[in-house]
């Protein structure tokens, strides 16, 4: 995948209203370190609508971490709150905004709807019972 982080922000911009609470409002800036440089992602949320830019602007909540870790969060492989708890992610400002924004991160890769798994498990049994009944 080319750039999980860029794709993540593009998706959040498109699907913001589906992912975030309808009344969500505020600004976040993600400062992502890589190769001695820092990428800025400025996210403005207004009633669930999301606008993303690369501006280095003041934000209600400033989140700093390594680009590599953020890529993993963007893919659902790592979790931003756990990373925050181990100090891999630092937050300045309005922490609840980040806790709200975590909704935008995807499920871990390979996650399936739990109901599907159970349907599959019991589908076989259902067919067996059906056959018994027909006999």
């Amino acid at each position, binding site marked *: 995948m080319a750039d999980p982080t860029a794709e993540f922000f593009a998706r959040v911009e498109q699907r913001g209203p589906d*992912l975030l*609470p*309808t*009344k969500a409002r505020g600004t976040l800036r993600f400062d992502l370190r890589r190769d001695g440089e820092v990428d800025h992602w400025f996210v403005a949320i207004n009633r669930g609508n999301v606008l993303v830019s690369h501006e280095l602007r003041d934000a209600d909540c400033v989140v700093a971490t390594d680009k590599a870790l953020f890529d993993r969060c963007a893919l659902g492989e*790592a*979790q931003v*709150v*756990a*990373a925050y*708890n*181990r*100090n*891999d992610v*630092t*937050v*300045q400002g309005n*922490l*609840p905004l980040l*806790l*709200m924004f975590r*909704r935008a*991160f*995807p*499920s*871990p890769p390979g*996650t*399936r*709807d*739990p*109901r599907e798994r*159970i*349907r599959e498990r*019991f589908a076989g049994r259902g067919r067996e019972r059906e056959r018994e009944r027909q006999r």
Partner: protein
Amino acid sequence: MKPLVSILDGNTFVVSDNRGDIDPSPTFPTGLFSFDTRFLSKWELTVDGKRLSVLSVDDLQYFESQFFLVPGEPTHYVDAKLSVIRHRTIGGSFQEELTVLNHRDEAVELTVRLNVESDFADLFEIKDVKEKVGGTTVLVEADRLRLCYQRETFRREAIVTSTAPAQFDQGGVSFALRIGPHQQWQTRLRVETLVEGAGGRDIRLSIQRHHSRSPEELRQDLDAWLDRAPKLSSDSEPLTETYERSLIDLAALRYTPLVSGPPLPAAGLPWFMTMFGRDSLITCLQSLPFTPELAGPTLRYLALAQGVSLDDFREREPGKILHEVRYGESTAFEEQPHSPYYGSADSTPLFVILLDEYERWSGDRELVQTLEHEARAALHWIDRYADLMGNGYVWFERRNLRNGLENQCWKDSWDAISYSDGRLPAFPRATCELQGYAYDAKIRGARLARLCWQDLVYAEQLEREAADLKERFNRDFWVSDGEYYALALDTEGGQVDALSSNMGHLLWSGIVDDDRAAKVAEHLLGPRLFSGWGVRTLAEGEGRYNPIGYHVGTVWPFDNSLIAWGLRRYGFRHEAGQIAEAMIDAGRYFDGRLPEAFAGYDRALTKYPVQYPTACSPQAWSTGTPMLLIRTLLGLDPHGEHLVVDPALPEGMGRMELLDIPGRWGLIDAFGRGRAEHSRTPPHLTE
């Protein structure tokens, strides 16, 4: 083991023996804890190398205690020439004022020492202490001792300082003293717990470091809290005692999670000093008429953390309300799933139930509107992700096979859900009380949709679904032979037929058909379930019944409070009173502080309720129990802008007055009288 003494402020707490010493114990968490990490595993006072003996302990406040000590063995201290007072408080940091008094008429020279260590154990590791992955270093500085733990970027640090001159070394702190005749010496020791980024050169922002409050601020806060609560006066001394104890304990159990803001109820000391969806929601339901300020922040916090995507490790699903939040090392490194963990099938319907009950009391429609999206998502979860078998019931089966909970209902120990003959059903399982909560959530969701969201179509849909659920439930769960509700359904649609306390919750939810309620009440108060001290979790005679089994025979006060509320709902005033009386009686044996659980032995066998060995105390929903019982006895229920009072007190309880009950009506007083002792009271006033 010596009796333990605890003080706490939010999720920072100290558990020590009755000398004030902390020695690491694998079975019970002694130590100084904060944010699920043990910051002190040893805190041991000696005078001239000898440990001390206790004369007495004063539990002054929940955040303050005082130990009176003398050197030497208990047999020798009678004519002690020296005494030691440890006065400790907790308020953000841990402080201990150490006073040494010389009773001789000559000067003494002595060495006072505190041995200090930290293992930085995660609360999850206490029972099974492991080799730590990270490293601990002890830094001795001129004026402080720093105990540091580091694992990659994860850092925790305990800093020990003293107001009096001290010699710090790797193992603790010493004071070489000379105390004049009839003089005293004093120092104030302070242990600061840093959760993150402290000390080192690359200090990162440590917003996790919580706000420290002085004992004086804590005292004022407690006074204000007690002042806001309704005043109870009653002829029943045990009732007054347990109510007052509960108010203080509930104040003690408030904590502020990572997101700062108003405090929320944590679940219990010492294992559960954190946010549990189920415990916090039920505690708020119990305490709404008394301390309504907890409910709004709890709902907001749970809404903020509501799931929107799937996660197998954390058992998260869209719309689901969390089960447990932790901040310790094992959670941070994703070895444990609590960031947050969503493994409970009841917190989601309970969220909707509390939202409605909160509105009924407070009239705060704004919050109901603010949380409309989350409440709808929760209701949606009931029909989608909870219905694993696709047959219209709430089911659970864990997806986290490593450390997820097998039983995702309040009886969450592995053997809690069984057939009458003791067999355990396969997964998924649908326990009965979950269906009751789902029914209640739909009924209450409909009320909110009509009243606050102006969505009549949705309200009618929810009501149809609820009616349908009630009909199916009464067909599928009713055990006709025994005339009670099965504990659960299995995947074949068969009844998991143990007789249990769970059906008491069904009365509270209103899912019980009217013509069956009397049978349910009869079982709950019958000899197999009712021990005399309360309703057992599992009936005597069931395959897995064990009077000291965590969820298979013990009596849980919170369970009983919901059962009493349910009995009252169906008009069983006498039976509700019987349970309330048993609980209030039991409370007398615990100084008014009902524990998490006590043994299910018959009351005729044990003249006092036997506390369950590792029970948490204080525990939030046990603390809420006397409050809900008082509500039930007085028959308090909001109707529109009014509070209906319809007392039904047991005979012999005498008079009860509850003044200044807060709510949308402002403040209202309620009165009730038990019959027997006031025979002149006309019967209609007591019915």
